[in-house]
């Protein structure tokens, strides 16, 4: 049989459970494990009330006890409840190879629950030990609800192999997105850790976090300073100190700071524009916006009004505002 070729399925329905001493079961997340960041309490409660409804499947490891094929959480919960032994269905090692065991557990899990992102990464990293990328992209990424793109495959492999446990936990909690994790994975380990620790001090939403990572990578490259060192600089640490309050406006403040540092000229243009507009003392119901990035030459004015005479008044007023004709000057100063 060639590497990666899948054996015919075994019929496990007739296999009777046998008691296995808990100490004989390897509890390290093994080659079939795809559970991460779970809460054992509900399962423990269910076991206390109803007992074990579905017995775990274990496989003999040559002279070294048993590895869990499926039912890893159940085994952990029973251990936590103090069971000295667990009824398991036992497979001899030769009955099923590693890939077959992995796929059996994968399909059982897919039928029963949703994976979190770290669990998907565990599946992909484990499949990668047996299958070519092409096979994973074609068959398994869609099963996991992922885009079949090599770059996505790389990110998930990286999540399992290179992210430390704090970052994985953040992914499970949703405070780190897969996209941001992918960007962090491109960094050297020390920079990755420093940046992650800086980021989690703020209450960034997913989009803001990606922007922040992107800006910091750029700033570090422009200034020729490693990210870990950059984030130790006074202004960055002061910002992080303020960020401890964890309020959304602090996240916005941090982002504006990063933008201003990354885009000094554009920021000055925006500030100059805002100053020119505020110098016009327009009524609150009138708003003037510059084109995005000042790229086009089309500015936008918005007037909110309730009836025609209010609109007519507003237009009359606007026609008498002095300084309006200079509003589109793209200088960086504040006008009058």
């Amino acid at each position, binding site marked *: 049989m060639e590497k990666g070729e899948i054996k015919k399925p075994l019929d496990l329905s007739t296999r009777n459970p046998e008691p296995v001493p808990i100490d004989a079961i390897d509890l390290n997340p093994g080659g079939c494990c795809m559970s991460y960041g779970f809460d054992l309490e509900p399962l423990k409660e269910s076991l206390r009330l109803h007992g074990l409804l579905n017995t775990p499947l274990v496989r003999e490891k040559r002279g070294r006890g048993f590895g869990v094929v499926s039912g890893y959480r159940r085994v952990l919960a029973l251990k936590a409840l103090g069971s000295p032994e667990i009824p398991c269905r036992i497979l001899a090692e030769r009955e099923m190879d590693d890939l077959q065991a992995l796929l059996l557990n994968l399909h059982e899990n897919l039928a029963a629950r949703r994976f979190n992102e770290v669990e998907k990464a565990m599946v992909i990293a484990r499949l990668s030990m047996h299958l070519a990328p092409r096979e994973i992209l074609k068959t398994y990424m869609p099963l996991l609800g992922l885009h079949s793109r090599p770059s996505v495959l790389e990110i998930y492999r990286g999540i399992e192999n290179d992210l430390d446990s704090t970052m994985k936990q953040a992914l499970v909690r949703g405070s780190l997105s897969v996209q941001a994790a992918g960007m962090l994975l491109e960094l050297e380990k020390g920079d990755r850790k420093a940046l992650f620790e800086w980021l989690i001090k703020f209450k960034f939403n997913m989009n803001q976090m990606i922007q922040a990572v992107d800006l910091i990578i750029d700033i570090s490259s422009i200034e020729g300073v490693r990210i870990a060192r950059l984030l130790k600089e006074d202004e960055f640490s002061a910002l992080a100190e303020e960020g401890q309050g964890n309020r959304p406006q602090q996240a916005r403040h941090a982002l504006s700071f990063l933008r201003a540092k990354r885009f000094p000229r554009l920021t000055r243009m925006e500030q100059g524009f805002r100053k020119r507009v505020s110098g016009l003392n327009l009524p609150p119901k009138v708003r003037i916006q510059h084109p995005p*990035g000042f*790229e086009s030459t089309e500015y936008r004015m918005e007037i909110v009004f309730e009836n025609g005479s209010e609109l007519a008044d507003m237009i009359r007023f606007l026609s008498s505002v002095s300084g309006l004709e200079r509003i589109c000057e793209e200088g960086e100063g504040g006008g009058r």
Partner: protein
Amino acid sequence: MTLRVDEILVARDALRHPETQRILECLKGTPHRVADIEEPFRGSYDPGEKRLLRLEFHRGAFLKPCPGTRNYICCGYQVLTPAANCPLGCTYCILQAYFNRPGLRIFVNFREALDGVLAVIDNEPDRVFRVGTGEFTDSLALDALTGWNRRLMAAFSRRSNAVIEFKTKTSAVRAMLESPHRRRIIMSWSLNSPSMAAWEERGAAPLRARLEAARACQEAGFVLGFHFDPLVMHPGWREDYMRTLDLLDAYVEPGSIIWVSLGTFRFMPALKEVIRRRHPRSRVLHGEFVRGLDGKMRYIRPLRVEMLRFMSEKLKAWDRDLGVYLCMESDVVWQEAMGWTPRTSEGLSRYLDARVRKFFG
């Protein structure tokens, strides 16, 4: 330059093609294997990675108008594509994000497709076709292998409504110099500042070598073109680009330059990640970019105007009749940087067609 190839992948249907056989013979000793066209090839032609060459058929049209966009003024160029991807590996190269199949690709059916291309040109005798092969690869980098430029030169020199531009960053002009043809042929070089050329165009010939090649071509009677594209913002860019302009002055006479294009660095957003990953030490992403009206990232307008105005003024001071034009810029930027504007893509086409008539009749 010597083209290094580690492995050749031949599309199954292209294996028997005489051009495939000829190229395989040329690269005897390089391992090759036959592959189905759909096979997603890993690796690319990239320093440090396995260098793959793919020999395959091109299914679409070989001659296509330059993919300009509505919001910026386009020069109306026609792109001829005998190959795709490029062995020079410039850090900023747009092709890195453009083609989903990495690896250098030679379209072995180019030779027979050329007749069709020429028929298209001959069919519209009143139109000027400005054709170039340097859009999706370097025009000269693969010629030692394909030998197609000679054929192109012969074919275009016999036409009165077309020119062909060979755009390069190499100095590999021997075959061009040996050709007897000069009519309707433009030899062009992409130039940059010395520091950008050394840092971001590492696989290309050094600036001086490019200009020596340009001088040799000029002395041999070729019409020349130059392209300052991409102009990249970097500390001291004015002095740095001035050095290149001084070199240009030292090496070539302005009289036989048909045009000089100027374009600031712009890129599809997806390229940023590619550049960061493949060229972590590159500096091309350092400027202040905003999303342009065509979706590409560009320097903010005042920065572009500053660079383009600087370059056009210096070029004008060197010679007033260089046919300087801007690549993919807006009407406002044209006006602010150049002091005039062709207003529309048609206007720019007319201007460049007039340059063609002036040089080739």
